[in-house]
């Protein structure tokens, strides 16, 4: 299956799936599918990294398999694990006459295998989007594991043999860049840096998610958000926060986003008190 037939096809179909991609995102998504290479998406929080993977799956009708990374994630949670409880039961249930060899072969079979997201994605026959989310949260050892899986798209299980992908999944890795990933992993991936969108595209995103928002307010909102992002805050407002803000304004029936309205609702967008102080001061809200 071809994922996207061209960059512009990616733009159109992602848009149909509710994701408004800029040119670089569309081109890179097209390439990731066509070259069958994993796509590493980096960028600040809430700019649509995770959402891109979900949108690819919606746009192409592929199922999404998600591996959420965290500190302490290990092979047993990421790749596969033997269901030892069930194995123990099986051993105890073995009749006296049964040879150990037989029992052994039996307990290391498909029935006792617990597949985790990486193996699941590789074994699936249907088109699959594999989302490896927040990969920077893992320990360095897991990167070694990913490296193996992402280079050859195959996994060796000593007791069962090698499982190779019949169909390569569309792999998206996301990262907040809280640490640098190893060069080796990066070399195997295509790279996309997602950043805050320009005001025009942000307005499209906001109005597509909150269609009832008044056009004037939407313009005021994205302009205000852009100004806030210029302030070098600790936590700049993300797209998700713009959308939340839009919902709030709609719920409060605010039809003009003036200084007072911004001040009253700023808590939706800014999460640190020093950021709020700075915004109030620089935008002269009070």
């Amino acid at each position, binding site marked *: 299956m071809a994922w996207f037939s061209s960059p512009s096809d990616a733009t159109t179909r992602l848009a149909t799936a509710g994701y408004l991609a800029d040119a*670089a995102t569309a081109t*890179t998504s097209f*390439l990731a599918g066509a070259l069958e290479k994993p796509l590493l998406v980096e960028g600040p929080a809430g700019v649509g990294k995770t959402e891109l993977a979900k949108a690819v799956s919606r746009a192409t009708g592929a199922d999404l398999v998600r591996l959420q990374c965290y500190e302490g994630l290990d092979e047993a949670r990421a790749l596969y694990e033997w269901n030892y409880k069930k194995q123990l039961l099986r051993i105890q249930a073995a009749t006296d006459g049964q040879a150990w060899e037989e029992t052994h072969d039996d307990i290391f079979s498909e029935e006792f295998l617990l597949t985790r997201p990486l193996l699941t994605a590789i074994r699936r026959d249907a088109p699959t989007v594999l989302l490896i989310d927040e990969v920077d949260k893992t320990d360095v050892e897991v990167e070694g594991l990913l490296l193996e899986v992402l280079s050859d798209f195959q996994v060796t299980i000593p007791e069962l043999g090698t499982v190779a992908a019949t169909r390569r999944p569309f792999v998206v890795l996301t990262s907040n860049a809280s640490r640098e990933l190893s060069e080796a992993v990066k070399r195997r991936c295509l*790279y996309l840096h997602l950043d805050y969108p320009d005001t025009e595209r942000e307005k499209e995103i906001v109005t597509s998610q909150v269609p009832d928002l008044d056009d004037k307010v939407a313009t005021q909102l994205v302009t205000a958000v852009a*100004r806030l992002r210029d302030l070098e805050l600790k936590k700049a407002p993300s797209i998700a926060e713009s959308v939340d803000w839009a919902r709030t304004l709609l719920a409060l029936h605010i039809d003009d986003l003036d200084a007072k309205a911004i001040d009253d609702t700023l808590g939706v967008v800014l999460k640190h008190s020093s950021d709020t102080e*700075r915004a109030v001061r620089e935008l002269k809200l009070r």
Partner: protein
Amino acid sequence: MTLLDRHIAFLEALRAAGMPVSLSEDLDAVAALGLVGWGQRQQVHDTYAATLVKRQSQRETFDELFEIYFPRMVGEGFAAAAEPEGSRPARPADGPADLAAFTEELADALEADDLERLRQLASEAVGRFGSMPGRGPGMSSWSAYTTLRRLSTDELTLKLIEGLRRGGWTEEQAGRTAAKRVGSYQQMVEADARRRIAEEKGPDQIARITVRPTIDRLDFLSARRADLEALRREIYPLARRLATRLTQEKHARRRGPIDMRRTVRASISNGGVPLDVRLRPKRPHRTELVVLCDVSGSVANFASFTLMLVFALREQFGKVRAFTFVDDVHEVTDYFTPGSDMVDTMTRLADATSHAARFGRTNYGRAFGRFVEEHPDALGPKSSLLILGDARSNYSDLSLPTLRRMAASARHAWWLNPEARRNWDTGDSAASDYAAVVPMVECRNLTQLTEFVHDIL
């Protein structure tokens, strides 16, 4: 130059600028370009970016080089080519009236923040006001500097601020935005001058000379205003990455020596066989840091970055105290309250320079003397001393014995010098004299700074 030649030359230039482009990435780029084709410049750009640039900090360098090797236009571009032959004046229209008209147009575009228009105007400006005719073919050149001086960017900035304020912006915001827009227009002008020179002289030569290093390798001492902002924005992410790395390394090192008592006790349940080895937890040792920074002139930037980084990592240290000096000493620890705003802190730090100066000329010897006098309790057996400065003391008395006493009373002492090592000991630099007392490390950019901070933690 064929496309393949250009591709190879481009990759060479990226590598020369410090980007680690591997052979497999080279092949990926070729395969990818085979799919998207060469028809659209933006797609070629995005394809190269996706396959070759794996780190956002390299992005600016990549973009600059892309502009040189794959210019958006040749000569005066489409606009000029569309005019009928002969309708263009032989000489560029660059008289005072032309300049006034052009400036007007530019001001409008800046106020509207119309990027495409601004880019055209950048190219036009270089073509009209920045040409430096040479004596023969291949000898003429283009100067961004001349262009920008003739356009007088300061006036443009003021005008833009006025315009924005009329549109309801606050003074601070208008000022910041105007500086940013004019700054980005300046960069467009510089890029266009590079493009034109590359056209005359070939891209390789110009790439070698003019492309600036990536932000993490940029010399603190040669940073421009826009760079300072970019550098400042790097500090928190950098501190965060460093902290993550340190935590991970600490976990790996967490196991201490064998705890015999607990091991023996645990062995009882196995009939005395020590199956379970118990390890003593490692006692984390936390550095107490005393930072002493030269804040005179150009070293000031270096000092404030280092301070920002140290304080962003404050949880990693037991305690941090910071002092600034020119020829007197002033404690600035309180400026770094937790959760305080980075820009404010930097501004207050800069304002406080006057407290660190008595006669206003850097005098390391005097500053060390004053430090010992005023803060005799600052250094102790648990503390580590970190001195930041270029060791340029205006040929004054160095007070080496005082520094020796300071170093002896601390657990460790280091000196970070933001100057390139080859400049040490030139002019009034007393680098070697001081380095003989306190080990001195060259620290010219963020990469070196990160490594140093990592190593002392």
